């Protein structure tokens, strides 16, 4: 524990949760990628394990350095990253690599990454910065509209290729505006507008002709997913059915690590359906409630930061990123257990996801940095 305390600064409970999630992720990815490894890598089952482990380790190094930084630097970093996002998102739309029919990735200097991952983290950080500076003017509309415009533009640039990410990001930003004490009147209006837009969008999707002009876009995919979700049991897709089997047969204690039978049948068990897969192997208690509690604990500890933080930026940064990660995790869980329609959201820190792990690590690192700052200020860490 001495060693642990020496190197892991900041909130140790958060650190423990992160380590727990990462370990279960590595074990899960190794087991879940078996069939993928046979399909794409000629049976080299260690390929994805190694790749994932490398990303997790790099993620830890990044978290470590982020927590050592003074969190106030994140204010400036957020600004720079957001500008970078504004440049890279349109480039991705125009020039990005095609994977799974979606143009989502951009390759820079040989490293391929999802620009929306960068945009998400930088937008959340930037909103925290913006709102903390405007805490005395939160009731004015002039405070709301510039940041709202910024949010909408970013989300619109992500939406064509990755609608679910854009929707979740928008919802998270909305929550952040709420936490940042934006006038409820405006937020109510905004919520109404969102409902209207959602209704219009649904009507549009249900009536658009998939074989017409929309053929080369992702609209037919969205349409099919929504139709299936609304169609009840009849239209249940293979993925949903297989995920339900995985969750159901997992039982209270699971089939045991590496003993999944559904991984062969459940597409994307290592990413979009990781939670279902983990329940199958680790059961409701550890794989289900355990993982959920880890995220809730992280979120709960960020509330502690709000209580103790002397400045609004630190509080909003920590709680904003905390909600950002948790919302993503909970929506992923909702999809995995078939409460929500199928989306391509991964389970942060756990799912195999390459560069998304890196950006999530920056987010966790920032939370830890704020917690380290308040702990040291309080002086409850002797060697601080």
């Amino acid at each position: 524990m001495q060693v642990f305390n020496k190197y892991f600064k900041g909130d140790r409970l958060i650190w423990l949760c992160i380590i727990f999630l990462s370990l279960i992720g590595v074990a899960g990815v190794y087991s879940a990628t078996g069939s993928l490894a046979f399909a794409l890598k000629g049976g080299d089952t260690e390929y994805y394990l190694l790749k994932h482990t490398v990303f997790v380790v790099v993620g830890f190094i990044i978290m470590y350095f982020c927590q050592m930084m003074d969190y106030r630097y994140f204010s400036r970093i957020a600004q720079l990253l957001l500008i970078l996002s504004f440049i890279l998102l349109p480039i991705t739309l125009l020039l990005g690599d095609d994977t799974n029919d979606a143009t989502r990735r951009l390759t820079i200097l040989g490293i391929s990454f999802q620009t929306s991952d960068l945009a998400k983290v930088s937008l959340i950080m930037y909103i925290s910065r913006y709102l903390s500076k405007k805490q005395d003017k939160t009731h004015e509309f002039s405070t709301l509209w510039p940041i709202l415009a910024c949010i909408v533009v970013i989300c619109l640039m992500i939406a064509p290729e990755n609608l679910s990410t854009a929707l979740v990001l928008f919802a998270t930003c909305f929550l952040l505006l709420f936490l940042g004490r934006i006038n409820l009147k405006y937020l109510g209006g905004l919520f109404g507008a969102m409902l209207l837009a959602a209704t219009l969008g649904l009507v549009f999707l249900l009536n658009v002709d998939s074989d017409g002009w929309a053929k080369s876009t992702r609209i037919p995919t969205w349409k099919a997913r929504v139709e299936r979700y609304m169609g009840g049991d009849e239209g249940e897709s293979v993925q949903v059915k297989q995920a339900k089997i995985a969750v159901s047969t997992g039982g209270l204690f699971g089939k045991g690590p590496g003993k999944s039978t559904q991984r062969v049948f459940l597409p994307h068990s290592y990413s979009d359906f990781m939670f279902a897969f983990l329940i199958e192997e680790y059961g409701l208690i550890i794989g289900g409630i355990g993982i959920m509690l880890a995220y809730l604990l992280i979120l709960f500890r960020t509330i502690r930061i709000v209580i103790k933080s002397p400045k609004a930026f630190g509080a909003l940064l920590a709680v904003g990123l905390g909600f950002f990660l948790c919302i993503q995790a909970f929506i992923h869980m909702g999809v995995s257990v078939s409460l929500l329609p199928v989306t391509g959201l991964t389970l942060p820190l756990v799912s195999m996801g390459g560069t998304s792990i890196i950006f999530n690590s920056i987010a966790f690192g920032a939370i830890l940095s704020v917690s380290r700052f308040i702990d040291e200020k309080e002086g409850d860490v002797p060697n601080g």
Partner: protein
Amino acid sequence: MNIKKSILTRVYISFLLVVIFGVFVIGQIIKLQFVEKDKWKKLSLEQSIRYNEVEASRGNIYAANGELLATSLPRFDVYWDSRASGISNALFEEKVDSLAFLLSVHFGIKPEQDWQRDLRKARSQGSRYLRLKRNIGFSLAKDIRKWPIFRKGKYKGGLILEEKSSRKMPYGILAARTVGFSRETYHVGVEGAFDSILAGVQGQRLEEKMYGGVWKPVADQNGVDPKDGLDVYTTIDIELQDVAEDALYRTLVKNNAHHGCVVLLEVETGAVKAIANLERQKDGSYAETYNYAIGESTDPGSTFKLMSFMALLEDGKAELSDSIDIEGGRTKYYDQEMVDASRPKRQFQTLRECFERSSNVGTSKAIMAAYKDNPQAYLKHIKNAHLDRKLGFEIKGESSPLVKAPGQPGWSGTTLPWMSIGYEVLLNPMQIAAFYNAIANDGKMMKPYLISAIKDAGRSIEKFEPQVLERAICSKSTAKQLQGLMEGVVENGTATNLKDLGLKVAGKTGTAQVALGSKGFSKTSHTASFAGYFPAYNPKYTCYVVVNRPSMGVYYGSLVAGPVFREVADKVYATVAYSKPIESKEETAQIPWVKGGYTVEARSVLNKMGISSHPKQDSWPEWGSTAKRGLAVVFVEKVPAKSKVPNVIGWGLRDAVYILESRGLKVRVQGYGKVNTQSIPSGSQIIKGSTILIRLKP
């Protein structure tokens, strides 16, 4: 701290919402695990999805000029998902009769009312995988997509087309055994030898079990697309192959022979230009059922004398002008009598005359005089000529040669004299051809090869260059002397019937008695052969012909095998090697004669050549015949009703086979060139599965 409090309140509210959602998630898990436990347990036990393999399409085999020797034509099995999302009840009711009508017209099988009844039944039962028809061709599969209901698209209209392929050899029997086939455990010819290259790599896809135990493909990102097989380009010249096969066939029939084969090699490279094998079947017809050219080692007989003469000349043991006592064409080695096939005219002959007239006595006496005490010196030449071991030919089934040596079982005092005239030694036809090819090539032995390149959709993957097997099996001057001897065989020896003022050929006849295992040699069964090259003054091609067991009283190599050789030589002379382009002094443009067929390809070629082309009607036909009109080529629409046999006369083979197959006919092909006649006249009603014979002519 009003601000902090306000923020905290909002954070707590949000946290509570997340927790509530979490409770829902846990609730859902509990519902799945406990309330619906049995349902999912049952589903997991009868797991209804699987990964299934998807066949890669097999590569083509081409002749030297790019003609297809073997190809895979796409075929489709047609199924229908009656519960596809785009089929509303209104749509179904409105269109079911017209769909049933089209099905009965194009698929046949059953009348319109039955089709309609079956479609309705499938829909009311919720069948998601109703089989409509198997094995339809490419163009019909294309048309189906435009039919009512189906035209709503793959997922909405419920049309499921499963592609597979069937192997087709457009030239039928031509080089059939060399092209070969590949089945589970039985691999023959190029198909067998290059199976791994031609086969490609299978893909896999996710399939879901549907009502009735059938599997339907599901869109999934873990699927792997199959990697199609590569194309193999052979050195076979389809026209020469046709001539060789045809000439061999007629000779076999004429002499009622058991089997025969022809090997044609290019002197400079060793490339196999033709390889024909025919064997009499039980019903009296002839077919390519065994690759004798590489698979049967026999006593070569007199053609092996060239080997003996090479040894004599190379070692300086004799001069061609040396005189030998023929002993009246009869001599004895120990208790064995050796006899010449024809009674010699004189008692003494020069060594040259012994070769030209194929004297067994003269040849064996010269060899005995030179090597009786040292047979190893003679055997060394056989070894140098690579005749004691396999050639390492690309396709499987090459038989091992047998060359005895002193001290080994079977070697006796009579072995050397009989070996010198081609007995007590076993060689396959390809080896003899390679040996003669080496002499024609001034002593340089090339390795016979059949595969020139491996390509991926026209892009070269691997190229095979000619290989030298033995740099010099004898000196150049010896080779020249041997060439002179072979010219003499045709000029004034045993093969004067092959003399022709047009093209001078050279070679050696062979007439061997068929070995009967331990019982010695048959007096009545013979193997007639001829090995040689042409043109005599500048060797370009080597040809070896064997006819096994002719049974019409004639069995001499010159009379049975010689004509096949001559015919092949004349054909090569006329078409390939020496035809000069007709020089045109006029400046007028040459409009090429364009085969009818798939017009898109023809047009693009004409465009590249700068020749104008236009349709006769208003629009471009997809398939058409052609006509010259001034300096342009005119295309005439040529696709009759789908249920009628099209007119393919004047079309190229590939297009003709393609369109006839796509109409449900089985195609048999004879000859080469363009379609000259078709056995079912155009315009007649197509009876699916019936056979149409098309004869081609250059």
